[in-house]
């Protein structure tokens, strides 16, 4: 009887020792893993910080302004004019009349506000869209809703702001018709 208990205890001790041994090594492995992950997090944080710094460096208004000025002939981004700012109320409702009798929709960029002196400015964005591949011709699906400017863009030469000119889209059917 006593002998059986002793054997049992010895076995239990051996098992216990084995479990503790395993636990210890598992803990060590976990610690190493934690350290590794911590290092990784640290590295990611540093990478984030330097990427953020790079992002803000690339996004400096000074740099963007220089770029728009340099590529003005292609981008045709002009400084925002106060007359180009409007609210939803400034946009005229779609005319109720249908078909041929409908009056022609305004072309080019629409000046929402009309101060005493109105100088015509044409949108550059329509021209830009036309230059995109597949954006030519009759296809009303892609660029059809953007009216083509009647003449070359005539913006002022003031400093830039990266705000596109407001273009009031024509209804698709109408645009398709006028493009044909």
């Amino acid at each position, binding site marked *: 009887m006593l002998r059986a208990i002793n054997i049992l205890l010895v076995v239990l001790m051996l098992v216990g020792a084995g479990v503790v041994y395993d636990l210890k090594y598992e803990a060590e492995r976990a610690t190493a893993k934690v350290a590794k992950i911590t290092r990784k997090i640290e590295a990611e944080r*540093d990478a984030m*910080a*330097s990427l*953020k*710094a790079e*992002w*803000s*460096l690339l*996004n*400096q*208004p*000074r740099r963007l*302004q220089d770029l728009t000025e340099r590529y003005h002939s292609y981008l045709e981004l002009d*400084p*925002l004019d*106060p*007359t180009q*700012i409007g*609210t939803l109320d400034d946009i005229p409702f779609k005319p109720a009349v249908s078909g041929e009798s409908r009056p022609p929709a305004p072309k080019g960029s629409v000046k929402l*506000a*009309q*101060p005493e002196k109105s100088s015509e400015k044409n949108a550059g964005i329509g021209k830009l869209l036309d230059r995109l591949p597949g954006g030519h011709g009759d296809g009303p699906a892609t660029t059809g809703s953007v009216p083509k400017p009647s003449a070359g863009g005539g913006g002022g030469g*003031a*400093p830039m*702001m990266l*705000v596109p000119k407001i273009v009031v889209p024509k209804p698709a059917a109408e645009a398709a018709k006028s493009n044909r």
Partner: protein
Amino acid sequence: MSDVAEHDQDHEHPEARAARDLTASRGRIVFAGLAFAVVYAAVGMKLAGLGMASDDHSAALASGSTQVSTARPDLLDRNGEVLATDIKSSSLYAEPKRIIDVDEAIEALASVIPEMRHDDSVRKKLSSKAGFVWLKREVTKQQRQKIFRLGIPGIGFMEENRRFYPGGALAGHVLGTVNIDNQGISGIEKYVDQESGLAELRAAGMSTDRGLEPRRLSLDLRVQHVVRDEIKDALQRYHAVAAIGIVLDVRTGEVLGMSSLPDFDPNHAEQALEKQNMNRATAGVFEMGSVFKTFNSAWTLDSGKVRLSDSYDAASSLVFGSQKISDFHAKGRSLTVPEIFIYSSNIGSARMALKVGSEAQRAFFEKVSFHKKLETELPEVAAPLYPKRLSDVSTATQAFGHGISVTPMHTAVAGAAVVNGGRFLNPTFFPRSREEADKIAVPVLKPETSDKMRYLFRLNNTPGSGGSGSKADVPGYLVGGKTGTAEKIENGHYAGNKRFNSYLAAFPMDDPQYLVLVVLDEPKAEKEVGAATAGLNSAPTVGAIIRRIAPMLGVMPRYDQPKPIVASN
């Protein structure tokens, strides 16, 4: 014999034999115990020795890490754009004691950094007995990777923080600079250190690395850029010596943009020491000239002794002993108060001030901080210069901004108080809500006076009114403002050809939200124009700034506002 022996043995008492055995074994036990004690003592001493030995390396590292520049909180603009941040860079160090072969180490290092091959200082450092030496601060990532792969014993890397300003010179005067140990030495950087107690922590030998909350400033990166861009343009176009631009939120006193040219790039802190690069906006005092007629009109109207409909003789010059006050744009007749304002009549302004009195002028100037330093976060603030003694002459000259020198920022905040309903707010470089502003605002003028001043401002700016600020007008934004063309003092005399031009404007005038002040130091006339007055250089610069910043700041243009009518007799 054997019997005897046997007898002897037999006769030995069993207890006595046990006692003899015990004594013998006790001796052996004590011996064994001592032997074990000696062995353990040896092991313990070796352990202690090892502990001491490994301390050498960590002490070397510790001495190195105290030299590493610490982390600083990021500085962001009001929209969260980065103005200043820390970037990590690796620095190469060596522990000469742990280097086995100096020649081999140098050879290996030179394969990555070639200039180390013939650098005697590197050899000297590596052969020394020092615990820790820097070999190269801020090595590139590629170099770091290569040296790491070489696995030279005694050579290692330490991560350092370096302050980086993505905007370069964009907001140099506001942000300030840090030294090589990343401690703020000027501008907001210095303020942040003092405020958060970082400086004390560092002095106590503690340095934090993480968990520094970024600080948000009231500055708007885009506005700051526009201000700097436009005044830089003006500086070049009018060949001015210096240019200053300030944009304030008149309702809260927040500084949205502040630039003083020539300026410096805080990434190269040494540029900040050059004298011409000083911050003129808050640390330079100037006789502001005619913009002071704004304040003169404000406090005289506020006293009730001067009304808008009053008129004053501006035909004859005002004489005080040897001094004579005359007008630049002389009209040669008596002028109403609005006319004095828009034609910028010195004589009229002086007469208005003298009618109300020196005491009231001094009281108002004290209320709007013209007699003390501005209370703001920026450490670089200058104290104004003003006449200590009250006299009619000084009252008359101060009415049109001579004989008193204040900083452009003083002028801007006082201007904000004039248009925002008469509430004086110290400027701040950190966000301040309207509620907070309402709590700390000090009333300096009656709201009705502010209404009248807004009318005068708008009148001066309306094209066709003959006002000096018509070139600053931007259709739709109801700009109103006051020009100032002061002559600079040279060798104790006013020099007629050296001017200090300013334009103080606010918009939209029916409910002022933002104030713009542009100052040009010694502008020259453009060839085709022929004059160098503020209306021809500072005013158009203000107009250009407003045209660009108003849409950014969400001010809607309106065209339905009636034009102010000139109240002329």
